[in-house]
C-alpha cells in the first residue's frame, strides 16, 4: 500500500527566507504527486501537481523517483504563505493518500 510521509509538523521561517517542505512517499509504480494547501478558515485547495511541472505562487516541487521524494520549495517566503501544507499521492486517478501535513509559519 502507498504511504506519504511529511516529517515536520511545524516549519517556522522568517519572511524572505527559503522554504523547503519535505515529502517522501512509498510506492513502487508511477504515482501522481500533489501538494495541497489550506489557509486559515479556507478549504483544502490544490497548489501543485508534479505532472504539470509548474510554479504556483513562487512554489515549485520536483519529483525525485530515485529518492521517492516530492519536496515543496520557495526561494523567498512571504507572510501570506503561512498555512497548512499536505503532500498527496494518487494511483490510477482514484483515491488520494495524504501525509499528516506540515504547518508553515512565516514570521515578519
Amino acid at each position, binding site marked *: 500500500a502507498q504511504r*506519504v510521509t*511529511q516529517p515536520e509538523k511545524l516549519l517556522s521561517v522568517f519572511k524572505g527566507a527559503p522554504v523547503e517542505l519535505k515529502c517522501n512517499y512509498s510506492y513502487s509504480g508511477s504515482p*501522481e504527486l500533489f501538494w*495541497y494547501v489550506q489557509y486559515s478558515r479556507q*478549504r*483544502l*485547495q*490544490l497548489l501543485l*501537481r508534479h*505532472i*504539470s511541472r509548474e510554479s504556483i505562487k513562487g512554489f515549485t516541487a520536483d519529483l525525485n523517483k530515485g529518492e521517492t521524494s516530492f519536496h515543496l520549495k520557495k526561494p523567498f517566503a512571504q507572510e501570506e504563505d503561512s498555512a497548512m501544507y*499536505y503532500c*498527496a499521492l*494518487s494511483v490510477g*486517478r*482514484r*483515491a*488520494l*493518500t*495524504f*501525509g*499528516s*501535513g506540515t504547518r508553515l509559519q512565516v514570521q515578519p
Partner: protein
Amino acid sequence: DAGVTQSPTHLIKTRGQQVTLRCSPKSGHDTVSWYQQALGQGPQFIFQYYEEEERQRGNFPDRFSGHQFPNYSSELNVNALLLGDSALYLCASSLALAGVNEQYFGPGTRLTVT
C-alpha cells in the same frame, strides 16, 4: 459556480446514533470522494463514487456507507456512531475522464459524537 458544497456545516450526535452527510460536486464533475480528517491528521480516504456505484473503498468499516444520485450529488452515512468518528468529513469532486486526478474539496462537515 459555488464549487463543492457540503451540508450541514456542523453536527453533534450521540454515540450509537446514525448520521447522513451531503455533498454536491463542482459543476461538470461526475466523481465524488469522501475523506475523514481527524484532528492533527491528514485526510483519510473513505470511498469514491462514480456512475452511482462505489468504485473504490478505503480501510473503513461497513458502518460507513454511501450513495451517489443521478445528478452526481452524494451522501455519506455512518451507523452506530462511535466517539472515534468525531472528525471533519470532506467531500471532493473530480472528472473521471480528466487527464489528471485533480480533486476539488468542499469546506467539510464537522461531526462531533458525544
